[in-house]
């Protein structure tokens, strides 16, 4: 097959020299940042090795898990349902506000409206849901309701941002086509932008549901009910075998939610 062989051609010199200095600077800065982080976090593999028997004792107390039905498993299952319910309502009830902010916060519209809705979303995102939970507990008392309210507030910010980014990535062609046909902006959104992005919006919604169920565990730690509350309680009572049971339940719950959302997303992608 000598016919396919071609003579060598020298590579022409490039005008622009590769920027070696830039690479060095980036490497030095990154290296310094990691050294600093190592110190700030008191990272010490030695301490981990020295303290291994502490972990063994802890695991020894946690295993085997306490599987007593009446005192552990049944309340655990009920609490799991509460956790799931907090995550579900916290996600669903944040949809209207998130959609509104996402549409208003998509580039290419009125600049003031865009900036205001972006700022609102940033604010909601910046305040952790645990902080929202503490605020709402002062209003409605301890319990799952405070958890739902906290999730709604935080999730509007996060989901609004994810959704507006998905909308910005959508092909502007169909929207242009409808504008040429004389459609108003709201009609363009309803008939060109939304139909094109609905699959990715639903995918992101399911992802947020997944995250919110896990967040509602943490909210349980600050008194918002659910299985997180039970985990916190069992740790405070040094009942590590009970805690192990609850953590196993959480594991099953998270995997189930993950499988469910993955299956729905697969169907949507078809």
């Amino acid at each position, binding site marked *: 097959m000598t016919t396919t062989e071609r003579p060598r051609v020298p590579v022409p010199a490039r005008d622009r020299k590769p920027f070696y200095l830039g690479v060095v600077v980036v490497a030095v800065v990154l290296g310094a940042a990691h050294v600093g982080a190592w110190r700030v976090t008191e990272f010490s593999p030695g301490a981990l090795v020295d303290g291994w028997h502490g972990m063994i004792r802890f695991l020894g107390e946690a295993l085997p898990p306490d599987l007593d039905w009446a005192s552990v498993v049944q309340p655990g299952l009920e609490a799991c349902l509460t956790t799931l319910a907090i995550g579900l309502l916290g996600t669903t009830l944040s949809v209207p506000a998130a959609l509104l902010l996402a549409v208003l916060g998509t580039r290419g519209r009125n600049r003031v409206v865009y900036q205001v809705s972006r700022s609102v979303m940033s604010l909601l995102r910046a305040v952790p849901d645990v902080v929202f939970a503490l605020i709402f507990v002062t209003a409605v008392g301890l319990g799952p309701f405070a958890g739902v309210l906290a999730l709604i507030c935080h999730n509007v910010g996060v989901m609004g941002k994810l959704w507006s980014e998905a909308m910005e990535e959508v092909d502007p062609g169909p929207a242009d086509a409808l504008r040429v*046909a004389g459609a108003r902006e709201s009609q363009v959104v309803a008939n060109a932008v939304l139909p094109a992005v609905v699959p990715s919006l639903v995918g992101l919604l399911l992802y947020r549901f997944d995250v919110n169920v896990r967040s509602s565990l943490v909210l349980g730690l600050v008194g918002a009910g659910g299985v997180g509350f039970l985990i916190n309680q069992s740790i405070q009572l040094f009942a590590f075998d009970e805690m192990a049971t609850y953590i196993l339940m959480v594991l099953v719950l998270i995997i189930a939610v993950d499988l469910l959302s993955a299956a729905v997303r697969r169907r949507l992608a078809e």
Partner: protein
Amino acid sequence: MISYDRQAGGSRPLPACPTPPEQQLTPLDTALSVSGLRKSYGDRQVLKGVDFAVAPGELVVLLGANGSGKSTALRCVVGLAEADAGEIRLAGRRLRGLGGAELAKARRAAAMVFQQIHLVRRRSALDNVCAGGLAGLPLSRSLAPAFFPRELRERAMACLQRVGLADRAHDRAGSLSGGQQQRVAVARALCQGAEVLLADEPVSALDPAAATQVMALLAELARRDGLAVAAVLHQPDLAREHADRVIGLVDGEIRLSCHASALSESDIDALYQSEDS
């Protein structure tokens, strides 16, 4: 008055081709007339004073190399680009001086078909065609296809029938072939009820058979339905076969305007020469 004989517009004169008898068209006869159209992007002048007109019942094809300004001219007419200077008349109305709702209403006299088709792929062909008629609807009836009034759906069905796809009304647009999708896009433009149909490279993404079919449809919409059709093309052969008149642009100026039958090989070579020489 609009003249079609601006052939000696640059350094390289083109061979003369017969000037069409429509030269005496007045703006009142034409569905679309453009005069002195100028447009720059930054330092680059894309349109350097372009004049052309399209009468009801004729298919005019705009030819020219990439970057010669053909598509920009059409985009200025429908408002996807804003012209720097020049006058555009649509269905007898001057666009200059109009604003807001009046301008939008006047522009509705022109519909557009795109190279990338721009259908909503997840929606049915019929729902996509309905979207062409949204302009007259109140918001409450236009938020989702389920709310579209029956009158609109039946008008859209008639448009689908006109392009020969009535049997595919409920198929998802994304499941249709490229040629069928472009015909659905033409139906959407028809549903707008415009007198002028603009097509920006409508067949560039299609195979030859589908391209011929779409061009034949555009020609028929001009001749039988009396629309004024202007199409940007990259295939001189298709222009010769289907168009009534051909307008050639070089570097933002009209260098050629003649009957499609009079278009010669040397005319075509001259249009595409400047790019690589």
